[in-house]
């Protein structure tokens, strides 16, 4: 019972703050409310019985990526949006949102979302054993190449200034 209430509370937080991210004209405000979105998402992961992913969400997204976003905002010094919203873009966005809703709804109808195992707790050790088994060896090593290219890319982009 309390799970359901908590889920709806955090879901409401997620949705409202996500709407603020999109609707806010001041980019710094958007960034701060995106942090709220990430934190409430993390709480939902916790409710779903996966505390490791929840902590990861806070560390990587709320703690690291959002700091990067804020740094980039300070770097570019984006002031409030002054442009009036364009009608054509708004229309295209509406169509995309509609498509997205249809897709999510069809996925939800197919999946058995209403019968999640109660009291399920993802074992961090089990997850680790799966992740580092030979099954995901290639994907895991490929991740490091992705990270490497991002690192080199960031350095090259900023290099002129060094």
């Amino acid at each position: 019972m309390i799970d359901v209430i908590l889920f709806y509370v955090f879901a409401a937080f997620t949705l409202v703050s996500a709407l603020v991210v999109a609707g806010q004209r001041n980019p710094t405000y958007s960034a701060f409310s995106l942090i709220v979105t990430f934190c409430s998402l993390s709480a939902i992961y916790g409710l779903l019985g996966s505390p490791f992913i929840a902590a990861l969400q806070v560390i990587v997204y709320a703690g690291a990526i959002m700091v990067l976003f804020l740094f980039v905002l300070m770097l570019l010094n984006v002031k409030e949006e002054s442009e009036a919203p364009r009608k054509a873009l708004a229309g295209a966005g509406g169509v995309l949102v509609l498509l997205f809703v249809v897709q999510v709804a069809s996925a939800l109808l197919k999946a058995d979302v209403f019968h999640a195992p109660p009291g399920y707790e993802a074992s961090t050790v089990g997850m680790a054993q799966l992740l580092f088994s030979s099954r995901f060896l290639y994907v895991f090593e490929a991740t490091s190449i992705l990270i490497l290219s991002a690192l080199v890319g960031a350095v090259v982009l900023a290099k002129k200034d060094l």
Partner: protein
Amino acid sequence: MLPSYVPVLILALVAIGFSAFTLGLSQLLGKPRPNPAKNSVYECGVPPIGTARERFPIKFYMICMIFILLDVDAAFLYPWALVFRDLGVFGFLEMGAFMLLLGGGFTYAWKVGAFDW
């Protein structure tokens, strides 16, 4: 919900309540008496020029970018550290290859001078 997380939730609520209560109390006890001079930006008595929200050097961006990448790496290290004994030499080499690639990137950033402020 996992039962072991109930105290975390309770503590979060009590902590939020505590900060709201003390800040509210201090607002009640110390009545704000604003005046323009008091509310001006503190800049050692000199009137500030322009806004404070100026552009910042790109170094901050780069440090943060490298931090994120190493943070993701550390996030992989934690589950690995839990099971690396059972994985044995295979797991050690697997993580070794991962770290070696990242170490290459780190050395490159070092040599290029990314860490010289």
